[in-house]
């Protein structure tokens, strides 16, 4: 990152550009502060221990969000139990077991690029048609988790592959020259070296999964009571915010409170991702 001073400018146009850039940055930062301030002022008073541990009353105008928290955590767990092994396996295959120009690798990468761009509503439709109807799961946390797993898979694969690709080739060559199997190289060298990057990618995926609304609307349902099991329908935090703001008059305060809880969860996850990727960068520098 280069300091502005080192660009040694004196022209008028430079000052104009500088002013525009600083102005844009100020607007963005200002917007963020505005957003946060609004949310805090409207929702902070709702957030309390009771809010987190009791059930909603009167469609959510009163009471808490405990069932939503539970539903969210169950769906997340299902999503990642399914997506992590599949995603890691695919990333390992793409990174270590394919040649640069193999057709199957190209087909898989193309599919992943497309899957990553497909609108979430389409995943919702697919999930509803495939998991809920065709597989007979109905509106359930399981169907929601499986559909989210499909959505999150491309992100996980991309970040995991990038993490593995960043591991120096020297180690692969050294391992091969010693007659070590690729599995041994992965187990002792490559996966441990890529671990911070893999975890950072996982956190990114969790962040996206937490933010999803439309998908879960169609697969996990709308019911706001505590789910009895993973086959039961449930409402996640994001869907609760949607319902409170659009369909429940006077639900705005509760919606903001829920939004603050969701943001807090995301902050924790994001913070972990940043810390892990920074650690990854630090390791790269010391081991260069």
């Amino acid at each position, binding site marked *: 990152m280069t300091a502005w001073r080192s660009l040694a400018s004196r022209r008028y146009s430079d000052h104009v550009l500088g002013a525009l850039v600083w102005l844009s940055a100020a607007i963005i930062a200002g917007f963020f502060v505005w957003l946060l301030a609004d949310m805090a002022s409207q929702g902070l008073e709702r957030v309390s221990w009771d809010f987190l541990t009791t059930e909603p009353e009167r469609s959510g105008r009163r009471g808490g969000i405990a069932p939503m928290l539970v539903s969210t955590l169950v769906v997340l767990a299902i999503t990642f139990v399914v997506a992590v092994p599949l995603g890691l396996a695919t990333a390992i295959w793409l990174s270590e077991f394919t*040649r*640069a*120009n193999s057709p199957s690798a190209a087909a898989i990468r193309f599919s992943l690029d497309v899957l990553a761009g497909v609108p979430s509503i389409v995943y919702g439709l697919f999930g509803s048609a495939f998991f809920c109807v065709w597989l007979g799961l109905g509106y359930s946390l399981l169907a929601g988790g499986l559909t989210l797993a499909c959505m999150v898979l491309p992100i996980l694969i991309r970040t995991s592959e990038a993490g593995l690709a960043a591991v*120096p080739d*020297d*180690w*692969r*060559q*050294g*391992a*091969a*020259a*010693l*007659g*070590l*199997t690729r599995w*041994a190289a992965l187990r*002792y*060298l490559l996966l*441990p*070296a890529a671990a911070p990057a893999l975890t950072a990618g996982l956190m990114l995926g969790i962040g996206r999964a937490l933010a999803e609304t439309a998908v879960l609307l169609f697969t996990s349902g709308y019911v706001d009571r505590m789910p009895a099991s993973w086959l039961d329908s449930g409402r996640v935090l994001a869907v609760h915010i949607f319902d409170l703001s659009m369909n429940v008059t006077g639900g705005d305060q509760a919606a903001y409170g829920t939004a603050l809880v969701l943001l807090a969860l995301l902050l924790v996850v994001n913070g972990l991702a940043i810390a892990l990727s920074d650690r990854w960068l630090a390791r790269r520098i*010391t*081991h260069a």
Partner: protein
Amino acid sequence: MNTPLDSATSYTVSELRQQAACCVPQAHLAIHNLSVRYGSKTVLNGVSLAIQRGCITALIGPSGCGKTSFLSSLNRLVDMVPSCAVNGSILLDGEEILTPKTDVLMLRRRIGMIFQRPNPFPLSIRRNLDMPLQEHGFKDKADRERRIEQALRDVGLWQEVSDRLDAPALGLSGGQQQRLCIARALVLEPEILLMDEPCSALDPISSGVVEDLILRLGGRYTVVIVTHNLAQARRIANYTAFFWTQNHVGQLIEFGACEQLFEAPVDALTAAYINGIRG
């Protein structure tokens, strides 16, 4: 011809003995009409020579003549390069190794490789040597410990690292790291060692120490070493092979006993290269 030992390094006396080149030449590796191609580009063509058992063979020639490709074919490491094709025949003790049936992992235990840039694993010093042993089936822990100590003594590192075997290998100096890589190759008790410019990434003092070590390996191991340093080749090699590019394809120009190649080269090109007129 031998540089005096630096007092900082000390070698054990018994195991690693200096021996003269073996008196009866015996082909350990017989290479016949080897050619290497990456995709549509041929990098090496029609190379035939014999690597003699127990001797140090130097491969000299300017960059891009296919010396590294030649070296990597000997332990089939060239397989890792996409769209690579190797034709010809390489016999290890009379057995062909360029077949699909060859057990490549076993081959690489018999033929070890040291790279230009030291590449110790991001593990402790002990684990660098222990892990390959475990992977190749050495189950007894005491046995492994013994082999590790022996390998470290052989390369002269034991005195320097015996009190910190669990420290990260990447914390060692460049010269120490390269010697660790040699120890790592030696711990599997290979028959042949392939070295791709092992000293070129090291400072002159470390380079001298590693060169000393290589000299001591001769006799007990068969060594094939790629080097840009003609003086180094003269110092340590028993046989020398000179490579050059003709029509953008690497060729073997001349191969012979070291003194003969340097004192009385047969090919005019060899003479020109050695005298610094070309390359």
